[in-house]
């Protein structure tokens, strides 16, 4: 498929040097306050959505973030773009620290970092036609000298995402799900970004259309040297498109590994369980494989377990260290793992044991009907 490569002008499209990093995240925390009270909001606790994440996204590569719902992966993505303000920690984008940047400079920086959302129907304005959707960003950032120049730019972008020119005058509801996601990608692409954060880019699409969008993202990366941060719950999709995958559990990274190693040699018990839970469309594999069933549900991020956050569900949990000492990300081989016993689990020295499920309340659900949820943190009261 031949396409004109450079959709944009400027240095953004220069072939990237493999190896250097575009985004560096250091000890990023996003805590949302839980407030109570009628007249004065009293802070009674915090939901620790993201609780100290370190990661580096290499330029021109794809970093995949996986985890179950509520693990903080979307919040992390939004905090990197400063769409949600981080509580503490730093995000360095191409040598510029974003966390301290004044609002107007931040807005200018946003041209270089764009986002693709999960549900294309709700992230596109139903009253705007495609041309207006695409031209809005260009106008906001003052790209393109006049209408004709902008028009040229958006036609080229449409072509790059595989939509015909007549789409410009149409409205979002006239397109199928896959096409809408293409419009969403075009909207991100038209500004010529370096980084695209894709939050569940294909999970709202049908299986046969998913592959079209995945391939499109792949092609665009090859042509334009884009850097992706792909956030998704579908491990197979993430592993397919990512170079490096980070696995999140309750606001922290538990393992980070090259995507091939993640399946062949998962080191963290949670990664192992996750890998074994994903169904593979092959009866032979399904029959052969050993499932590690996790007991219970994800604990509430308002009241995470002490020590290793996974120890309440971990089939390898040990009586020492796990309940009281929070594991750091350690480098083992090509991976980084936050587990005290990773080596001894890998060598088979430690065996799995039974875990009894602990009942986990969904957020907002109190202990007894009629009362509000109370985060059971020391010092909190209602």
């Amino acid at each position, binding site marked *: 498929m031949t396409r004109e490569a450079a959709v944009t002008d400027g240095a953004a499209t220069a072939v990237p040097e493999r190896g250097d990093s575009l985004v560096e995240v250091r000890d990023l925390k996003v805590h949302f306050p839980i407030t109570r009270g009628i007249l004065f909001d009293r802070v009674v606790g915090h939901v620790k959505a993201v609780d100290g994440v370190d990661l580096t996204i290499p330029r021109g590569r794809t970093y995949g973030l996986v985890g*179950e*719902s509520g693990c903080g992966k979307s919040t992390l993505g939004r905090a990197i773009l400063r769409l949600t303000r981080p509580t503490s920690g730093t995000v360095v984008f191409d040598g510029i620290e974003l966390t301290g940047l004044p609002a107007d400079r931040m807005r200018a920086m946003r041209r270089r970092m764009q986002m693709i959302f999960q549900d294309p129907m709700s992230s596109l304005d139903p009253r705007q036609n495609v041309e207006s959707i695409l031209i809005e960003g260009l106008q906001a950032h003052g790209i393109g000298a006049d209408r004709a120049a902008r028009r040229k730019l958006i036609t080229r972008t449409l072509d790059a995402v*595989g*939509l015909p020119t007549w789409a410009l005058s149409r409205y979002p509801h006239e397109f*199928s*799900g*896959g*096409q809408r996601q*293409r419009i969403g990608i075009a909207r991100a692409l038209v500004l010529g970004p370096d980084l695209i954060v894709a939050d569940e880019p294909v999970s709202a699409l*049908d*299986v*046969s*259309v*998913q*592959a*079209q969008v*995945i*391939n*499109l993202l*792949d092609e665009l990366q090859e042509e334009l040297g884009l850097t992706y941060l792909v956030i998704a*719950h579908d*491990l*197979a*999709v993430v*592993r*397919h*498109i*990512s*170079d490096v995958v980070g696995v999140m559990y309750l606001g922290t990274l538990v393992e980070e590994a090259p*995507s*091939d190693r993640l*399946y062949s040699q998962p080191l963290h018990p949670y990664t192992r369980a*996750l*890998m074994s*839970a*994903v*169904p*593979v*469309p*092959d*009866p032979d*594999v*399904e029959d052969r494989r050993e*499932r590690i*069933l*996790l007991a*219970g*549900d*994800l604990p509430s991020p308002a009241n995470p377990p002490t020590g290793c956050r996974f120890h309440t569900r971990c089939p390898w949990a040990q009586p020492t260290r796990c309940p009281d000492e929070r594991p750091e990300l350690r480098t083992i081989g090509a991976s980084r793992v936050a587990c005290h016993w990773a080596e001894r689990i890998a060598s088979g020295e430690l065996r799995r044991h039974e875990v*009894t*499920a*602990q*009942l*986990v*309340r*969904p957020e*907002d*659900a*109190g202990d007894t*009907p009629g009362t509000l949820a109370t985060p059971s943190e020391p010092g909190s009261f209602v």
Partner: protein
Amino acid sequence: MALLEVEELSVTFRQRGRRTVRAVDGVSFSVDAGEVVGLVGESGCGKSVTSLAIMGLLPRQAGVTVEGRADFDGTDLLRVDRRTMRDIRGRDIAMIFQDPLSSLNPVLPIGRQVTEVLARHRGLSGEAARREAAELLDRVGIPDPTRRLREYPHQLSGGMRQRALIAIAVACRPRLLIADEPTTALDVTIQAQILELLKELVRDSGTALIMITHDLGVVAGMCDTVNVLYAGRVVETARRRPLFTEPRHPYTVGLLNSIPRLDGGRGERLSPIPGSVRDVLPWADGCAFAPRCSRQVPSCVGGPPALVLTHTDRSYRCVNPVPPAAGPATPADSGTAPAPTAGGSAAGETRTTAVPAAREEESA
């Protein structure tokens, strides 16, 4: 004899001022006692409407036409009166829906919702019903069941709600369980728990299960027989293993080739099916998949493709099927070398334009 025998089931929705939609178009399949049967397809393929029709849950109003037969142990479910159907539903056939929060009543405690079924079908009441309900919750793996009985759906997590729903469904030991995307709303680790639970229930109680899903991975792990649906028709029926090792219908092959596999390598290009489900023929006859098919031949549009039956419980609707040797490993990359198989009368000719091509915009 089969427990459930669905024959030529068709469901049509007519509405004034709207295009008539034939959501299910001559679907036939059978379920044996204790068997797990999968109905697989993308959104809009008619898999949910099929299950609703079998359960008699489609609105009985003008404009909704249900035709065909659904023989359940000698009774045609499509023709019984409402009273009999109410007796069958919940007792002999039970259903689990996708979203447990919207299928549980938010203002009633879990216990009431479980005992309701026990009272209606098994005549249990009071302490006996409560004890039985607690036992059921325990059986589906809900910790501390007696306390859970007094709680409301919003107090349980998604996985626990789905377990509660399963408890209600299996309360009367139904002979047939219909699960409509039971794990789609859940996380993978919870999905694994629920699937394991369903497998156990089927194994222990001999209940037959109709598993409606879009996830071929779930099918590979659970189903004995698989029906692949496309645009309201069953396009391929096969036992589990042959379906994955030797898919014959181009749509099945396309589906298998378009999903990224967890154990696959990074960077292998997927081969998606061009177009989208909305691409249908502008006329009623002919194979609905033809506009997206890479193996289309002129005879695809003559009339509805006949069901080709092969030996060993296998059938497909295709005039130019994928040759048996070509599994998903060697995808049907083009229609240039179709094998002269039975039924493929015009197999020698390649891609003439009798069939409208998939719409440009999605043929990435």
